[in-house]
Structures are given as C-alpha cells and as structure tokens.
C-alpha cells in the first residue's frame, strides 16, 4: 500500500552534498507495525517525512496506493496527509497557547468537520489516550508524556490509515513510554498501519518488523521474533511493582 522506490534525498550545503538517503526501497503493507532503526543521522526522520508526504525525494518515487506522490500538488499532498496520515513528532509539535482539545481538533478544522462534531471527535480521541480530564490544559500545563499523548490523539482523530511516530518515547520516562507504546499497539490492532522511528532496540521490538538503516541505506530488514506487548509490560507496573521491566527506555 505504501512504497518507496529507489528514493534518494540529498541536501546541498554550499560545496558539500549531504546524502541523507541513498536509493532506498521499502514497501509497507497495510496493517503492519514497523520500526525504522538506526543511529543518529542515519536518515530515519528523512525517510519518515518522505513516506508521510511531508517532503519530496530528490530522486526515486513514493507511491501511495498506486499513486505517484511526485505528481501531486502541495494541496493534494496536504489533503492526503489530512485524511490518511497521522504524525506523532519527536518534539510533540503542539500549538502552544492552544488547549489540548483545540490541538486535537486542528486536523478536523482542515478536514472541514463542523464545530460540534469536531469537539465530539477530539474529545473521544483524548479519552482514548487517557486524557479526558485534561481537555482545557495548554501544552505547557501538561507533562511530556501527556503532551505526547495529545500528539497521538491529534494523529488518530481523523481515523487515518497510517500513523507515523518519530521517536515517540524519546523524551519520556519508562512508564510514560510504555503507555505510549501500548496506545500505538492498540491502534495497530484496529488495523492501522504504524511506523515507528527509533534508535532504541526495545522500542523497536514492539513492532512486527524492523528496518535497519545506516548512512542513508537499508542494511537489514528483519521480522521480530520475540515481540514485546506493552499491555503486558504495563500490567505489573499498574498493579504495584516499581519496575516496569522489559522496556528499558
């Protein structure tokens, strides 16, 4: 359903050319939960932006459901992002001075959903990530984990078919990280394709497939044998144990 065909991304910095991605081929099936792993600067975020239609490759093509992305206009790309793709950014990227509820409503504003319907759906999405009691809070009145969950609520409020999460647990402590992974796994169980960018092996093992990337190239593509289920990790933590265990975030 989502394919990168020989994509390269090259930045020109004065005299130097930075090759963030070199002829990457990747296809992601519908309903898959996939992690992209690699060291810092290996091109993970760049790849996520390309398959999330936020950016265009220097060469090669990104194909979404048979349609070539490079032929689409910026407005068409925006419409596809709005309807089909949910982003969870590493740095949250919430609108400051805007309540959690309004932040989650934002994609619906651009989808043309009317006011009351919008509030209803945004409220439901926040409930789903366990923030029903924080609707009116501003981002700076929320903890990092709560902000990340607002960002997830915003990503899923439009019922996208794919959720892309860049280092979703990067800024979080271990228990918040487990909560976030649990939400992502739940989404995946409901049939949503989930792509996680991480440099952490434990986070990656929550998914069913790991793509290793180094210096802009895919070096390994493996199926996860011992998959971690966040729901099981979380349970002992909520029943009293101090050590969540399993996920060393």
């Amino acid at each position, binding site marked *: 359903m989502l394919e990168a065909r020989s994509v390269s991304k090259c930045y020109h910095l004065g005299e130097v050319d930075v090759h963030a991605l070199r002829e990457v081929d990747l296809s992601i099936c519908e309903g898959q939960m996939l992690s992209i792993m690699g060291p810092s600067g290996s091109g993970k975020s760049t790849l996520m932006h390309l398959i999330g239609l936020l950016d265009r490759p220097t060469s090669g093509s990104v194909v979404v459901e048979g349609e070539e992305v490079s032929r689409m206009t910026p*407005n068409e790309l*925006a419409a596809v992002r709005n309807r089909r793709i949910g982003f969870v950014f590493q740095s949250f990227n919430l609108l400051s001075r805007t309540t959690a509820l309004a932040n989650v409503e934002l994609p619906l504003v651009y989808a043309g959903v009317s006011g009351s319907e919008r509030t209803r759906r945004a409220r439901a999405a926040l409930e789903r990530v366990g923030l029903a009691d924080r609707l009116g809070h501003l981002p700076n009145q929320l903890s990092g984990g709560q902000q990340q969950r607002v960002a997830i609520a915003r990503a899923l409020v439009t019922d996208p078919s794919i959720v892309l999460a860049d280092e979703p647990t990067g800024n979080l402590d271990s228990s918040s990280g487990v909560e976030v992974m649990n939400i992502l796994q739940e989404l995946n169980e409901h049939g949503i394709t989930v792509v996680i960018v991480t440099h952490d092996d434990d986070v990656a093992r929550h998914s069913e497939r790991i793509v290793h990337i180094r210096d802009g190239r895919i070096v390994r593509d493996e199926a996860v044998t011992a998959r971690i289920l966040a729901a099981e990790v979380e349970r002992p933590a909520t029943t009293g144990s101090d050590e969540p265990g399993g996920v060393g975030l």
Partner: protein
Amino acid sequence: MNVVESFRIALRALGANKVRSALTMLGVIIGVAAVILLVAIGSGVQDEITGSIEGLGSNLVFVFAGNFEDGGGPGGGITIRRQFTLEDADLVQRRLDDRHAVVPIVQGPATLRVGNRTMRTTIAAGNEFSDTVFTSEYESGRGYRRSEVVAASRVVVIGSSVRDRLFPNQDPLGRTLNVSGQRFTVIGHVVAQGGSLTGDQDNQIYMPVTTAQRLLGSTDISSIVVKADTADEVDAVKHQVESILRPGFGDEFTVLTQDQTLGLFQAILGTLTFMLAGIAGISLLVGGIGIMNIMLVSVSERTREIGIRKAVGARTHDIMSQFVIEAVSLSVVGGVVGIALGAAGAAVLQQWVPTEVTVWAVGLAFTFSAAVGIFFGVYPAYKASRLDPIEALRYE
C-alpha cells in the same frame, strides 16, 4: 475550512499579542481619523461658503472688472486694466428693465472708534437697493435711503459683532461712530448672520456707496450686483449686462451668475478637500506598511505553527486566508476606531471650524483601510502559505 474558522484563528492570534496588535492598529487609526477629520473640515467649509453665497439673496448676477478666464478666479492674479465707476453702474441700471435692481458695490478697510474703543473692519457699501438685493434683516433701525446715497450722508449700519465690540449692552441707534477719522451716525444694526468663517458679515459696516468713495478717496467701485426679478430671467440679464458693457470694456469684465460663482468656489474647495484627503491618505498608507511589517514578523515568528498546520493538512489557501484575515482585521478594526475618533474630533472642532462628516468620507475611509489590509497583508500571507512544511517544522 470556512471563513468563520479563519476569523476565529486570526482573532485568537491577534488577541495573543494585544499590545502589538493595538500599536499596529494605531497607524491605521491615525490615518483614517486624519482622512475623516480633514475631509470633514473641507466639506464643512464648502457647505458654509455655499450657504453664505446662497444667503446673499437669490437670482443675483455679479459683474467684476477684468477677465477671469485669463486668470482663474476672483482674485486669481488677473490684471484689471480699468475699474468700474458709478457711471457704469448707472448705465447698466438705465439700459436694463426697471424690474431688475442694480447695486454698485464698494469694499474697503476702515478703522472704527467709539470713545476709547477701536477696531478694524471692512466697509461694504451699496445703494438704496442693497437691502432688497441682499435681503438684509435689521435687529433695529433701518438701511440707508436714496436721498442719503445721493447726498453721500455719513450714516452707517453696523454688523452684530461691531455692535458687541463698540456698543456693548447699549442701543447703538443714533450714536456717533468714528469711521477712519470721520464722524458717522449709526442708523441701523443688522441681525447676526452667524457662521464662523463668514462671520466677516457680522464684522462689517454698511454705508452708501457715495459716502464710501469719499471716505476711501476713490471713484472706483469694486463690482456691480444685479438682482434679476425672477429666476428665469437670470441668464437673460447676464447676457444683457454683457452687451451693455461690451462697447466700453471689450472683454475686460466678467459676469457671473450666482450659480457660476457657487460652482467656482465649489470647484476650488472640492479640489482642496481632495488634496486634504490625499495627504491624510498618505498616513493611512504608512499605517498599511506598519501592518505589512508586523505581519512579516508574525509569519516568521510563527513558522513552526505554520509547519504544524501544514503537516496536519492545511492547504495553501487555508494559511493564506488565515494571515490575510488577520491583516484585514487589524486594518478594519483600526478603520472603525479611526472613523469614530475622526468623527469625535470633527464634533469637537465644530466650535472653531465648520465640519461635516460625510457618508462618502466614511465609506471611502472604511473601504480604503480594508483595501490597505488586503494589499499589505497579501504578501506576508503569500510568504507564509508557500513555506515548505518540513523546513517550517525545523525552524527554531
């Protein structure tokens, strides 16, 4: 996304930076207030002059020495080769039908003195028809008679300001008034005309034309005024006067009907009003540049916000309309406040200068300020809408 939504976003953004929004608006407020105020003064003056020309009486034809078409207008730098004299006025009177009244006019400066009070004023002199032609109304006393015109008697009628200055709380009738060193008897006192610009009429004294000529030491007269018997005859009288004076003066005289005089003044004042509006418009333009400046700052400050909006699906025109509406809100709110302020200022100034806040000035100022918002808001908004989502998200 609909317009209401864009408005909500724009207003929230403006509310988040209240002081900055207010200062930006101030530029537009001052510009619009200046337009309203200056145009109000222009229109007010125009109205008052129109009123006072009409107030002179009706069906009047004015005859001046000199050819205005060479020069531009009354007092517009024309050379007058030969002034009219009383003989010319008599000639017009004799040749015209008796139903039309002819008044030779003499104007000149004078110094008035009563006891130790003195003041400078203007003499307006005419003949026994002056009262009917100019529809004078007397507070007390009477106008000068034919016999007094023939005899060049030293009788004088005073305006209300002159009375207030020289005979405060006294009956001026029968009193002696020293006019430029000669003793005159006050025989009448005209009703106050009011009006701050043409208050001159209240500040004048009136006397027989012959007396004035002696006092000023001249046999010239300033102009001739003819009152046509009916409105229909005004043009005919104008043409008759022209043919009466042509043999003696050639082209060196000008006959204007009251309507023409009015038109002349209105043209001059209309131009003046537009010039004032133009000058004020420049300050409105400066206000617009202020809006553009602040919108550019706002766009670069909110680059990340724009990136976020684009990432979740905002299209080019969504971002564009958000910022244009923000700029237009600034300019329109500024415009409305400016109109209110300008109108209030005009009301206060009314004490000294005639002002009139016209619908067209308000409409023009409002339209212009909205246009300024659109014009100066479009470029920053365009810049914002073209931002690349990834670059915008990366922006620190």
